[in-house]
């Protein structure tokens, strides 16, 4: 259970003060997938950073499983917009890093890493260094690295934005499959409403900066979902329209 209670976050001081987040209250149920959507730069990533314990809120508090988050939250796996791969490590050593940190033997961690490498479609790239991979491939490496150590909560910040449409669908499929098996709590930041509805149980729309909750919409699509077909159902269409109506206001205001 993740609870954001009256969260506000201000960066900088004096004339450079920017309010990124303002009075956000949000409760995220365990084992649910929640998509956060809103104009870019509105402070959604800041919320993820606070759940991960990397930022402290200026006001309010973040509760994780009943405890206040005061330091780095090691229960979460965090996939940031930047892939944060270690450039001096090969693909397989990057992916196996979490297990290396817990002292798993080389053989065991390589075996697990290889299985994931296959799932994210990077066979043959085990010994390459991140700098020789494309942006999309690096994203997949960092996804595999996060999935490897099976955190209870996944924080995903636009994880699939750099991928082409086909690959994105494959990754959606993979994510939902793993979620069915492992039942993590997933908080997903995205710009893509279709992606949000396809994956999530609930879509939370944020206003433009400073981020406030503008809309909180349940997605009542049956599971398991076929990530390729679900978008063509009537139910999907209705959900999409009702969220889009509200989301458009934020973009419209931005344009004026």
């Amino acid at each position: 259970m993740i609870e954001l209670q009256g969260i506000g976050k201000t960066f900088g001081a004096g004339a450079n003060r920017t309010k990124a987040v303002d009075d956000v209250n949000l409760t995220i149920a365990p084992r649910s997938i929640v998509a956060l959507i809103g104009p870019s730069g509105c402070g959604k990533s800041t919320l993820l950073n606070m759940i991960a314990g990397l930022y402290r809120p200026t006001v309010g508090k973040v509760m994780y499983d009943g405890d206040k988050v005061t330091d780095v939250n090691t229960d979460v796996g965090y996939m940031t917009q930047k892939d944060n791969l270690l450039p001096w490590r090969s693909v397989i050593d990057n992916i196996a890093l979490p297990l290396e940190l817990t002292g798993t033997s080389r053989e065991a961690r390589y075996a697990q890493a290889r299985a994931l490498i296959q799932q994210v479609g990077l066979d043959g790239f085990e010994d390459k260094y991140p700098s020789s991979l494309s942006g999309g491939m690096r994203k997949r490496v960092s996804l595999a690295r996060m999935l490897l150590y099976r955190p209870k909560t996944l924080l995903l910040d636009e994880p699939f934005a750099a991928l082409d449409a086909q690959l994105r669908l494959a990754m959606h499929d993979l994510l939902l499959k793993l979620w069915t098996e492992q039942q993590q709590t997933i908080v997903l930041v995205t710009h893509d409403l279709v992606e949000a509805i396809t994956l999530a149980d609930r879509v939370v729309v944020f206003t433009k900066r400073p981020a406030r909750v503008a809309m909180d919409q349940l997605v009542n699509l049956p599971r398991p979902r076929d990530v390729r077909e679900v978008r063509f159902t009537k139910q999907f269409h209705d959900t999409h329209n009702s969220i889009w109506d509200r989301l458009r206001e934020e973009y419209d205001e931005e344009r004026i």
Partner: protein
Amino acid sequence: MNKPAAVETTESEAERLEARQSRTLADASTAMMAVYQTLFGLLLLVLWQAASQWLIDPFFISSPLEVIARLVAWTSDGSIFVHIWATVYATFLGFAIGAVLGVVGGIWLGVSPFFSRLLNPYIWAFNALPKVALAPLLILWFGLGIHSKVALAAVLVVFLVFVNTFSGVREVDQDLIDGVRLMKAKRSQILMKVILPSALSWIFVGLKSSLPYALIGVIIGEMIASNKGLGYLVQRAGSEFDTAGAFAALTIIAVIAAVLNEFVQASQERLERWKIVNR
């Protein structure tokens, strides 16, 4: 109408020829370039020999043949090896001590903001000091033997390595550190698996640029007060007006410096394979 066109053609043809020629010279294979380099070196030696024969008194510039004769004499009676060993040994020992202290100090201050701010003005003040001016003090403290040379080399090395290591540690991407912290990394693991590898190229810049200074420190120490080493040889040759001896000792020093550089280069390439790969 035709004439200018023709002129243009010949001009561009000449340009093309010129371009091709310069390309062939610049694109010479490594082996071919080595031949050119050897020829150039030989040419310089011939000029030097000729100059000492006809232009300048060999008292001042000696001559290649004399220098070679001296090198052969030193080698055949074995006397040179004592000096080479003394210099190389002191260089390595001084470099090693300075490098270890510099890396350890740089990392320590790099990860402790309080001490780095506290010590900052003192470090810069001491760094601005020309360290060779410490030679007389060091000789006083460590004696005329090898220890004072080691100390001078170490003092020169430690700051270069320290400053680079410190910058390298400060440059580490905080996002990478946060990433592994979320994966439950301990402090020591963050240091070993993120901070050190990330700072490695900076540390190497420090090591690479300081190795010649280790040699400089030792040579200066030997010139000031010693009875062994290549610096002592240069100093003795100079005071005896023996230019051939001075040139011979300088030649050996140059060779040692070149070998040291190659050594650092090779070890850096080994350790930073991930960078070489994508070059």
